[in-house]
Structure formats: C-alpha cells, structure tokens
C-alpha cells in the first residue's frame, strides 16, 4: 500500500523545512532505517529515515525546496501499484493554503491554542538524529531541566539505559511520556536510538599500505620548526595546567548566532566557528591576566598592552602560526574574518613574515581530531601557549548537583616557569573557564 512521507516537525518552532538532498531517487528500494533524504530545519540538518519498506515511487520536492511541515515529500509503495489518484490528490492540495490557517476570531484562537494536539501526526519518516537542542534567545545553552519527561518516563528510561535526550517526547511541550519509552522498548532500542554512525553500518576501513623508504632534507618550514621546537622544549622549563571548560552556553550561543535567532551584542550573523569564540574568550582572559600576554628574552619579562594572538594552523608537511594583531580590540566578526583569511593564505604558504611573526600569545587548537587534551610546546619568546582540545558531549554536573549531558572542552596551558608561576597561570585558566560559561556577557 502506498504511504506518504511528509515533512516531519522536528522541533517545536519548526514551521517549514528545506530538503537539502535526496539520498534515494524514484524507483529506489527502501527499507526501514534507510536514510531517504537530508532536511534542514530551523535548528539543524537532519536525516529522514524510512519507516516502511517499499519502492520510492514519487518525489514531490526538489533539492533545496522549502516546504511547510506536513507537506508530502514522497510516496513509498509497491513497485506495481498505481498511485495516480494519490498523486493527483497531493498535487491539488499543494496549491491550497496550508492546513493550519490562522484563526481569525479571538474565540477560535483560544480554542485552537487550547486544543493544539500534542500527538504527532503519523508520518512515515522519522529523524535519525535528535533535533538540535532548542535555543532560547534569553537563556542559551543546555540548561539543566530543559528536557521534560514525566517522572514515570524518566524512571523507565533510567532502568533501561535509554538516554532521554535521544527521545522526541510526544507529550505537551515535547514532554517525554511513558508511551514514548514503551514505543522504544517495543521497537527495540537499536532501531530507535540515534545511530552515531549516521546511516547504519560504517564503510569498512580500507587499509592502504603507504609505507616507503624516503629521505626528506631538512629545509624550509620543516627546518624552522625543528630548530625552534628543539630550542623551546630543551631550554624552556615548561609546566602544564589542565582544565575542563563547560561549553554548553558557547554551543547554544553559537547555534543561535549562526541560525540568525539572536544578534546579541550586535553580532552580525555569520557561520562562526568555535575557534572564533575561543580566540575572543582567550583575549578577554588575557586582558584580565597581563602577565600571560608577555614575552621573555632571558633578561626581563615584557608584558604587552596589545594582544597579538598567534594561532596554529596545520597544513600538509608543516605548521604555521599566523597572528591576529590587536585581537583584544576586534569584534567576533572581525576575528572570524581575520582568522579565515589567515588560515586560507597560511595553508597556501602565502603569508608575509609580519603576518606570522611577533605574537604575544598562542592558541593551538586540535579540537577537530576529537582529542581529550594535549600538551603544547611554547612558541618563544612568548611565555605561554594554550592547547585547545575537542568540544565533546560529556556527563556533567550542574550547579545544583544534577547529572546532565553537556558539552566540555579540555584545555592545557603550558607556561614558561622562568616568567610565570603556577598560580598566575591557574588564575588565567580560572578566568577563561568562567568566561566560557557565559559567552553572552562578553561576545561582541
């Protein structure tokens, strides 16, 4: 029997969705669990997964089309069956106004508000991944208690080891209720929980033997790195301070900024990276800790009234640390633009010397590799360097002692003990930690 696949409502605020990509085409066989398409909502991109087995008989929406929630995207059915009637019905209804017309009278509005059904309409596709956490422009990030579940549902989830944040609640306001858990249990956990491999079995890892006898002469960038790092590691008495930063609010704030939902502090919407936030946050922490924004020449410590922020950029066969001059005075947008430009030209080896020499502090970000933490080598004559590891989902404890799943980022500050003492470095990290917990107070 032919089944319609509709644009699902993937968040409370979603009114329409954009079909980014069809992963299956007309005539393709689909089975439950297959990713049919990728959909962009107001919050995030999500995969649409088939509920039913059959043939994808008809696609109604082109890639990059925006359609309202509930609009029919496709029909799945038996290869041989006729769907002419269904197609006619769907195509004629597409021209009609949206089903949820705005009621005009006050009475109708009240009735509609009160009567809003919380039972999701049956759709034949469901999101594979959970929707992005909803972002409240006032209170950003993942607040503890933001997830709503009935006590019974919470108890059942705990007993069966089901992460609540992976469930879309069917109760009012997205409340997760007993029926949602029953459904998961009856369908089998594996089918319903978000598949972190996104799309079932991961492709087999192909192992190519690339081993070879080669000899590369030490020259150019490699030579500079070899000399400077040997000198730095051998002559500078490094000590290392580590911290875990709670990034919940940065994650939420960035999501809000990038989705254009807020323009807090007059920040213009752009595709900001976490690195932009980290660079600006580091500047603020340096402003509070001038002893860390310093250089050391063996004779004296020179603190600087301006932050020239170096950040490490890797490229094939090397590494360069371009400098954002006067970074303390720049807006998030300026930092973003400057960093983007420097990274781009850095990777193509197009930087001029004054663009990579003479920084006052360095940030080395290897977050993209999923590391918990790492220990960097100071870039002399600077007196400290901050290693930034991945922002990861972690079990976290909120201020009230409740466990929740939050976002954490590991950092390590390496300091030159000739110039800085442990307490001074620790103070810098403490300030950075506090700053990252409330980006809305300083991002500009």
């Amino acid at each position, binding site marked *: 029997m032919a089944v319609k696949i509709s644009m699902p409502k993937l968040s409370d605020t979603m009114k329409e969705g954009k079909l980014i990509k069809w992963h299956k085409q007309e005539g393709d066989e689909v089975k439950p669990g297959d990713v049919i398409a990728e959909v962009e909502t107001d919050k995030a991109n999500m995969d649409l997964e088939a509920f039913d087995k059959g043939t994808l008989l008809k696609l109604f929406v082109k890639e990059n089309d925006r359609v309202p929630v509930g609009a029919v995207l496709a029909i799945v059915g038996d290869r041989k069956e006729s769907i002419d009637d269904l197609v006619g019905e769907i195509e004629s209804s597409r021209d009609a106004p949206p089903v949820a017309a705005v009621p005009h009278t006050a009475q109708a509005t009240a*009735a509609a508000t*009160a*009567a*809003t*059904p*919380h*039972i999701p309409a049956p759709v034949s596709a469901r999101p594979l991944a959970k929707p992005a956490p909803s972002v409240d422009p006032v209170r950003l990030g993942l607040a503890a208690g933001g997830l709503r579940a*009935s*006590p*019974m*549902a*919470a*108890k059942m989830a705990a007993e069966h080891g089901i992460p609540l944040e992976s469930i879309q609640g*069917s*109760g*009012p306001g997205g409340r997760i*209720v*007993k*029926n949602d858990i029953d459904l998961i249990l009856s369908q089998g956990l594996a089918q319903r929980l978000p598949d972190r491999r996104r799309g079932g079995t991961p492709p087999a890892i192909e192992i190519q033997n690339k081993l070879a006898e080669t000899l590369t002469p030490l020259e150019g960038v490699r030579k500079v790195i070899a000399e400077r790092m040997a000198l730095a590691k051998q002559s500078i008495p490094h000590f290392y301070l580590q911290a875990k930063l709670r990034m919940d609010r940065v994650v939420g704030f960035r999501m809000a900024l990038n989705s254009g939902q807020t323009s807090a502090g007059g920040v213009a919407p752009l595709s900001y990276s976490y690195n932009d936030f980290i660079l600006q946050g580091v500047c603020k922490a340096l402003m509070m800790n001038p002893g860390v924004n310093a250089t050391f020449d063996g004779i004296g410590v020179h603190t600087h009234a301006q932050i020239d922020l170096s950040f490490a950029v890797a490229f094939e066969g090397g590494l360069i640390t371009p400098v954002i001059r006067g970074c303390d005075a720049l807006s998030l947008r300026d930092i973003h633009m400057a960093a983007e430009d420097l990274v781009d030209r850095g990777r193509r080896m197009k930087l001029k010397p004054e663009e990579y020499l003479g920084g006052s502090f360095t940030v080395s970000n290897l977050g993209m590799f999923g590391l918990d933490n790492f220990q960097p080598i100071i870039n002399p004559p600077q007196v400290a360097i901050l290693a930034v590891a991945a922002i990861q989902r972690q079990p976290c404890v909120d201020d009230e002692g409740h466990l929740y799943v939050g976002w954490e980022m590991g950092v390590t500050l390496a300091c030159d003990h000739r110039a800085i003492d442990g307490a001074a470095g620790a103070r810098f990290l403490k300030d950075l930690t506090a700053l990252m917990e409330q980006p809305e107070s300083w991002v500009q």
Partner: protein
Amino acid sequence: MAEMEFRKALNLALDEELARDPDVFVIGEEVAEYDGAYKVTKGLLAKYGHERVVDAPISESGFCGLAVGAAMAGLRPVVELMTFSFSLVAIDQILNNAAKIRYMSGGAMRVPLTFRGPSGVVHQLGATHSNALESIFAHTPGLKVVACSTPENARGLLKSAIRDDDPVVFLESELLYALKGEVPDDPEFLLPLHKGRIAREGVDVTIVAYSKRLHQALDAADRLAREGIRAEVIDLISLRPIDQDILLRSFRKTNRMVTVEESWSFCGIGASIVDIVQRHAFDFMDAPIERVTLEEVPMPYNESLENFVQPSVDKIISAARRTLYLESEASLHGR
C-alpha cells in the same frame, strides 16, 4: 447467593443486626409506621416493635443528639437521615459530639453509632436537597465514612458499620436503591470498613470512583476498552480512612489516574487522593491526575443544567484519554 435490590440488602442487614444484638435500634423520620421514606426499614416495626424501630419528629438535631447519648450509654443506634442534606441541621451532633466524645473522654466513652441514608444528587430536587457532603465528614477525625455501591457491599458494610465501636457515616444513594445484585446468604457476611476493591482490572489508567459514580466509571471502562484502553476501576468504598494501598498498587501499575467524585472539586475526596499518590508514587506518574467532579455551582434545578454539571461517562472517558495524552483539555468543553 440470592439476587435482591439494594434497599432489600440494606433491610436484611438491619434485620439481621436487630435480631443479633438487642442493643441495636433504628431511629429516624418515617422509619417505623411508614416503613421508611425509601422502604429500607420495611417490616422492621412489625418485627421488632416501637422500642427498637422509632419514628422521630422532624428534628435531626434532636434525634441525632439522642442517638449520640444512647450510644454513650451502651446502645448501638442506627440513625436514618432521610437524606444527608438534612444532616446539616444536626452537624454539631455529628462532627462535634459523635466524632469527638471518645477523644474528649480520654477513651472512657465510645460512640458505636451509624448515621445512614441517601446522599448526593438525585433528580431535580434543587440545590438544598442535592448535597454530597462526604468531604466534610471525611475531613473530620473521629468519623469513619463509607460509601456503598452494590447490594452485596451495602449489606456487608452496613453490618460492619453497626458492629463498629466508632461512629460511622454510611452513605447510600437514592438512585441505587432499585439496583439488583447477588448477595451472599451467610448472616455473618461482613466487609471491612477501611478497604476499597478492584471493580475491574486494567493496566492503562486507574479510574477511582465510589457510590453511584462507580457504575459510570465501569461504563466508561467498557467504552474505553473498545478503543483498546484497558482501564482499571477502583471502588473506593472507604472515604475515611482511605485505602492507600489499593490506590498506590494500582497507580504503580497504570501510572495514570482519574478520580470521580459525587461532590465539588475544591477540598474534595479526589484532592486527597492526588495528594497521596503524588507523595508516595511520584516516580510512577506519567501524566497529571485528572479529576471528574461536580461543577463548582449549587445544583441547578433545570434538568439539562443538572445533568451538565454532574460527572458523566463522557467526562470520565475524556479525562482518561487526557491522562494518556490522547486528548487535550479543550475537547471536554466542546462536548
């Protein structure tokens, strides 16, 4: 087992207890010569005489007070109130004397006394004759409050109430008097005054009701079953003390509850049930507990309005569906 009417089951209980214990006597308006306003005391005068089946003047405060004194002196009076609406003129005797004398006398005196009669709305008797006052009685320490719902439990409970050494408020319903049902023959058939019973087993939602509302709850459960919802129905029976165990056992199974009561919502029986459940079974709650009560108005005389303000099978079904998130609040008023 024999099939008999509700009123006959009560009559049998009175007859048996009058025969069993010479200290038992019946007093009330029209209970003797007229055989009772609802014929519950039919034939008792002829059998036991004027000393033990006493016609009282229209003075509830007088004969309720007399009964309290008689109970203190060692008798076991059974007071018939023509309707519990009339207990209001004797409320001092019931709440202040019957309920408190055992306590005030340091346990020296007991008040083995039963106040019985119909309670709640009947049909177009107007606001002052349609009271359901169980919340007031159940509110008061010192009283036991029982609501019977079938001929079987009417008989077993009334006999237990008469034999109990404390004052019992025994609530009947005029609309149940003609209900027929099987009643055990055993003259020692007694039911505990502090226990509810499972009237129908289910797993999806617990409907708690008592007295005539039990029958609406059972009808609602029948209709819910047709849409695949298996409701458990509890016949509460004891309103004070309330049977916590049966409520909590059922709720821990179903995780959803609807309470149905004869009276108004505020400070009602259902409010106390909600209190018990949220306190002792918080982790088992899946939805707010729904209550079906009288609307907050004096009982209208107008028949349509009288029906509208009462609990109904439709209202109970709606409430049950709401606890299952199958329906939202608005649809109730749309009915």
